[in-house]
């Protein structure tokens, strides 16, 4: 079905089901309970999960398949955001033209940057992409302020022309033919509450499309060719094949994925800041991909969710909340436990994240996907044949060097 093998179809359906029920799955704790702090099922974070999932899926097409490690992909994310906000400012608050423009613009930039950068390989390629991205960031922050609004970030204002839309009182909101992106329906079941947001489902649908395309690319002859680039480019050249067009195509595709993610970020929240293009943002997508499992289909999405969860949930836990959790303990013990945990939460969330990176890389070279398959193996000892579609790639990669 859909031109997919059975195994891939299973994965796709699993992803679809999970994204469909994410508002429920991500809110496992009743509202108001002490553990509600760990709930991630609010619209803004769920949107970020899928948007950065798209970003990482795209990055994986380049890095996971060809092995070219780009350190400048955030530039395309930023370009996508700026294009989308300009579309909101000039044309219409409808998200379709904005997203189309952001994909096209990111694709164009990727074509130029990729054409130049792909003349080199290995770390020289990484530094070239890094240089381009840092240049975009520095210029967007300062000299290009008329276009990017610099430090403050590009926002929509009342005085924007928006030629397709009529006059509106108050700041207009982004919408899909009338369905407002921020529109949310809340369902109460017992003590639980689940938010179903239009914006989230819009992003989720696009992520499924993006995921489907990525599966098709992975399984296509084109994907095969890209893998060949990774395993031995020299041999490929000797056989008379020019690998450059293939890698450039992969670079442009992954740039367009980044542009789509950037456009969606702006569509959910019409603001584009230069920070999105900084090298740390490029590093973040590298981390997401490797953490989840580079070269696997589902890994990058997992990695993106993992990092965004840390950023948004762990950074918000403060001492007051800790004291609430451990209030059942005797005072002395309570204070001791809080003091021990204190460096790792709130302002220390970077520390926890750093430790997690190290642990995952040291013990799970294939990323979270390998971790999951190891757990799976423990439970399914007998069923050797059916398992590890995903972990194959992870293991191959671990053994690659």
């Amino acid at each position, binding site marked *: 079905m859909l031109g997919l093998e059975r195994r891939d179809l299973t994965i796709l359906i699993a992803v679809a089901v999970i994204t469909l029920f994410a508002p429920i799955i991500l809110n496992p704790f009743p509202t108001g309970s002490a553990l509600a702090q760990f*709930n991630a099922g609010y619209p803004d974070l769920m949107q970020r999960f899928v948007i950065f999932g798209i970003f990482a899926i795209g990055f994986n097409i380049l890095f996971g398949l060809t092995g070219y490690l780009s350190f400048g992909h955030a530039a395309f994310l930023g370009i996508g955001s700026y294009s989308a906000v300009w579309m909101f400012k000039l044309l219409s608050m409808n998200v379709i033209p904005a997203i189309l423009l952001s994909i096209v613009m990111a694709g164009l930039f990727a074509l130029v940057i990729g054409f130049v950068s792909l003349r080199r390989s290995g770390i020289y390629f990484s530094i070239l992409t890094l240089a381009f991205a840092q240049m975009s960031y520095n210029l967007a922050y300062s000299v290009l*302020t008329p276009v990017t609004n610099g*430090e403050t970030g590009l926002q929509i204002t009342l005085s924007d022309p928006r030629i397709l839309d009529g006059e509106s009182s108050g700041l207009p909101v982004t919408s899909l033919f009338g369905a407002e992106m921020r529109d949310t329906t809340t369902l109460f079941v017992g003590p639980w509450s689940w938010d179903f947001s239009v914006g989230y489902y819009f992003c989720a649908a696009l992520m499924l499309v993006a995921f489907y395309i990525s599966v098709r690319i992975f399984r296509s002859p084109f994907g095969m060719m890209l893998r060949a680039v990774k395993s031995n480019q020299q041999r490929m050249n000797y056989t008379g094949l020019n690998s450059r067009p293939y890698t450039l195509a992969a670079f442009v595709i992954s740039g367009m994925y980044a542009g789509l993610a950037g456009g969606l970020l702006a569509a959910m929240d019409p603001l584009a800041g230069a920070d999105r293009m900084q090298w740390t943002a490029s590093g973040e997508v590298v981390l997401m991909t490797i953490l989840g499992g580079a070269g696997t289909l589902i890994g990058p999405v997992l990695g993106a969710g993992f990092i965004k969860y840390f950023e948004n949930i762990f950074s918000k836990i403060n001492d007051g909340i800790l004291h609430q959790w451990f209030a059942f303990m005797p005072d002395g013990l309570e204070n001791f436990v809080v003091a021990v945990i204190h460096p790792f939460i709130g302002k220390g969330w970077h520390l926890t994240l750093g430790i997690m990176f190290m642990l995952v890389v040291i013990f799970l070279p294939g990323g979270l996907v390998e971790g999951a398959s190891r757990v799976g193996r423990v439970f399914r000892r007998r069923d050797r044949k059916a398992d590890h579609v995903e972990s194959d790639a992870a293991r191959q990669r671990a053994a690659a060097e």
Partner: protein
Amino acid sequence: MTRQTFSRRGVLKSGAATGAGLALPTIFTASSAAAFTNAPTGSSVTLGFNVPQTGAYADEGADELRAFELAVEHLNGGGDGGMLQTFSSQALDGTGILGKKVEFVTGDTQTKSDAARASAQSMIQKDGAIMISGGSSSGVAVAVQGLCQEAGVIFMAGLTHSNDTTGKDRKANGFRHFFNAYMSAAALAPVLQNLYGTDRRAYHLTADYTWGWTQEESIAAATEAMGWQTAEKVRTPLGAGDFSSYIAPVLNSGADVLVLNHYGGDMVNSLTQAVQFGLRERQANGKDFQIVVPLYSELMARGAGQAIKGIPGSQNWDWKLEDAGTKAFVKSFGEKYGFPPSQAAHTCYVQTLLYADAVTRAGDFNPCAVVEALEGYEFDGLGNGPTLYRAEDHQCFKDVVVVKGAENPQDEFHLVEIVEVTPTEQVTYAHDHPMFAGGSLGECNPGA
């Protein structure tokens, strides 16, 4: 089964209660539950404090957080009450806000507009915050202010000094207590004239982004008005680290004053390096060479150490002021934490009190009622003398403190000393002043 609304959380608690009783999906309609975003329904109200906890401004953020905790303690009737006693409006009585206990959630802005918005968004969507406050840069303030306007909650800005926050980017739901670049310039100019005369040539080194530009513009305009000339305006990249290649040409340029439009780490480095180059021991045009840092902060003064001796600048507030409000605040802050508060802490503390007071006077948490209560509001006893929250741009007008680096500080808390307190009239400007033009507040937005 479902409810259509643009905001969620406020109704959740009541919804949850009913839902629990029936253990079945419950029908709720938005209009019957709430007229505005995150309307508090239980016995408590949640405020969101969004401060930098990682990155270069983490210490400043930590100090803001201390002030917020203190403010919440005082609002709930704990501690010694701090400025509640000296505040001219005696509406607050230590029983929370409108009888509801004040609770708060915290988040990390990372000093990035993106991360700050994500953090504020989660406070609004997940934790049901009805007011967002804090922050340590203008970029973040403008971004979060925009978000609060769209979401329909009140934004009480923390430390933000750019003219734009209440100028071209002003919003109806946003309020700024902190002063701005124009006020710094207006307060500094007369002091500079007294110190260095009217015949000077100034060389500007400016952080190359919006805040730096507005400050450069303001200072240049104010000093030129009193007869100074501007020799050169040079933009430096943010976080340049080594400023030597920008400082070295200064002496040879014919300028005799160096104005450093930098903040944070940039200010510490550029000032330290300028002093290292020996600029202050040199002479130019027959006068002693001078350095000016228009925006001061105690934390950065600490970072610059010896280099700040005798360098003039301006502050929103200083703990060494003599009025009753300042004394009460310094006492309760100092006793709780063991050191005096910074100006960032002060502005955050005051903003929280002002919000609580506005809600109490309005008798309503509705953002539009709060906006109405704050607009044109005159108050006193919060550390800066009589203050006006101007209705046209939601900017506070109050005295500005001009300071300079102390020659012989007795401890690390006395690194700066007060030179002069510039009265309000001198720093007031028209709300449509060209440096602030191009923005409009728009309508207040209650969300829902």
